[in-house]
């Protein structure tokens, strides 16, 4: 075999090098495409994560505003950007709190969440905007004539209706059919109405699909409104006295006892005979033990129910047995409240169990809706909204619909 020198081999024209270049070029094109796709995927993931972080930052903004309102109920203003950067996520929020022009108790919270920061030039920049309406000192506890968490028993000639003491005394045009009764219970026949009981309003029970099964009616008992259920049980906080107890209050005979406007705390309370308790202005009375009101009862200032708030801090019984009318609100979420006299109650009652075997009427004062039960001036959510939702108004109308 004839051999050729190396110099001659080097002069030969081949295609291997070209082919290798071609394959390398193709591989490079595919690699770049694959890498670009990976980058796009990573960035899509990053945007998704930032979207979630921005929403949570906006929620943090709402919480921040509520904490401000809790410490200062009059707080309004706009925060600077609040960064909440951690090792695992970056973001922050701005939040503004304003007062609603038509209702001074309503606060409007607008919170904007940002991730990874409030600089739009940041990679994967995302925002989320939330709007919340909250009510300060909102009350809401006295939302109906009677709210008994466990049971309601009414017989005799008891009736309910409503009025608004802000519009004057009960009667005439100041009477409405909003004297509803409510309970948290869902057990059968836990609301028993008999005799000539007339509920001028509705009956609302705990969360159940068959609210009618909770209500038992007999005799001439009537309900002018509907029987419905709450979506969730209503939680009543325990009443906590803000001042220390000054012993028991026991009035009997022909005693008349005056109370200056303010807050009082007694270990027990008993008014019997012809005795009368006369607050000279708005008072809040906290009682640890039993509350017995009979005789001439309590003469609430101006006969205005919001001027007398009676709190039972324990679970002892509360009883009304006199013939005098009672103007006030009773907040006793752990007690049995019983009414056996002929006197009417102008106001509202919150109890664990409620028994009315007398002839007295319950005239729910709608002004009490503004009063907060318990002892705290809570912030309550009225509405919440996420701005710029993705799906609202999208889609096409289907034919035939």
């Amino acid at each position, binding site marked *: 075999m004839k051999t050729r020198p190396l110099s001659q081999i080097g002069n030969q024209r081949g295609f291997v090098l070209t082919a290798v270049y071609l*394959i390398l070029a193709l591989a490079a094109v*595919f690699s770049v495409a*694959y890498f670009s*796709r990976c980058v796009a*995927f990573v960035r*899509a993931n990053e945007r*998704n994560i930032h*979207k*979630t972080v921005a929403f949570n930052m906006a929620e943090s903004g709402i919480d921040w505003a509520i904490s401000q309102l809790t410490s200062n109920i009059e707080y309004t203003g706009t925060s600077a950007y609040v960064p909440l950067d951690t090792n695992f996520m970056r973001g922050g929020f701005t939040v503004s709190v304003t007062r*609603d022009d038509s*209702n001074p108790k*309503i606060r409007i919270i607008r919170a904007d969440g940002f991730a990874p920061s409030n600089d739009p030039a940041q990679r994967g920049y995302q925002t989320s905007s939330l*709007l919340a*309406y909250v*009510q300060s000192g909102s009350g809401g506890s006295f939302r109906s004539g009677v709210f008994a968490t466990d049971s309601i028993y009414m017989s005799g000639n008891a009736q309910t209706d409503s009025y608004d003491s802000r519009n004057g005394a009960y009667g005439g045009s100041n009477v409405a059919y909003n004297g509803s009764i409510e309970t948290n219970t869902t057990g059968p026949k836990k609301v028993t109405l008999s005799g000539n009981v007339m509920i001028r309003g509705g009956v609302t029970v705990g*969360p159940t699909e068959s609210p009618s099964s909770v209500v038992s009616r007999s005799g001439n008992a009537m309900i002018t409104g509907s029987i419905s259920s*709450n*979506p*969730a049980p209503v939680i009543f906080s325990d009443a906590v006295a803000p001042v220390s107890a000054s012993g028991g209050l026991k009035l009997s005979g022909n005693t008349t006892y005056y109370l200056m406007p303010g807050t009082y705390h007694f270990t027990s309370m008993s008014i019997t005979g012809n005795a009368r308790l006369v607050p000279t202005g708005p008072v809040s009375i906290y009682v640890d033990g039993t509350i017995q009101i009979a005789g001439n009862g309590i003469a609430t200032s101006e006969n205005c129910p919001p001027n007398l708030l009676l709190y039972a801090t324990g679970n002892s019984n509360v009883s009304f047995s006199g013939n005098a009318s009672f103007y006030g609100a009773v907040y006793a979420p752990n007690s049995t409240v019983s009414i056996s006299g002929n006197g009417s109650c102008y106001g509202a009652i919150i109890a664990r169990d409620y028994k009315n075997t007398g002839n007295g009427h319950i005239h729910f004062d709608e002004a009490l809706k503004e009063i907060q039960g318990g002892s705290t001036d809570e912030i*309550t*959510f*009225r*509405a*919440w*909204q*996420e*701005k710029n*939702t*993705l*799906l*609202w*108004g*999208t*889609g*096409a*109308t*289907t034919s035939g*619909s």
Partner: protein
Amino acid sequence: MRKLTSQKGFNLIEAMLAAALSSIVVFGAFLFFRIGSEQSQINQSLMNLKDSSREAIHKMVQEIRQSAPGHVIIEADGQSIRFKVPHPDHLLGPDFDVDWDSAHTVTYALGGADSRQIIRTDTTTGMTSVIANDITALRFSENSSPSRIVTITLDTQKTLSSGRAVPLTPLRLTAQADVRNP
């Protein structure tokens, strides 16, 4: 001329050998690219599935959390949900509560092509839209009724033109929506 004839060329066997070797190389390259292309398609489909499913879940969660515990109804089979969403322009009623009278009722359920699409229906306006494709199962659940937490679970799987299912077992995504309104 004499110079040309004196040059040595490939004989038949060499040419056939070269052709055979070239064929093997070309076939190998073809296989390489085909497998690469198919794998790329699988990866692309998987990526799209994850992305679109995640987007669908995000949209559903975003809309469900506008509702309230008493306004969310999950059907008995758990395959569809019906809930009320406050109108963005009429959030509040005159008493400063959520204005549920002007709220729209929205449903999510599987439907459309081969019942593999998540269909959103605004029953108030009658408008429908497709939220996601290639969904093999959709489940809604809540811990209690009514509940503030709605759990959404969806399974997604795509069948490629080659007949191959991607992924081999359906990809499952789960999210929870905490309904915010009182």
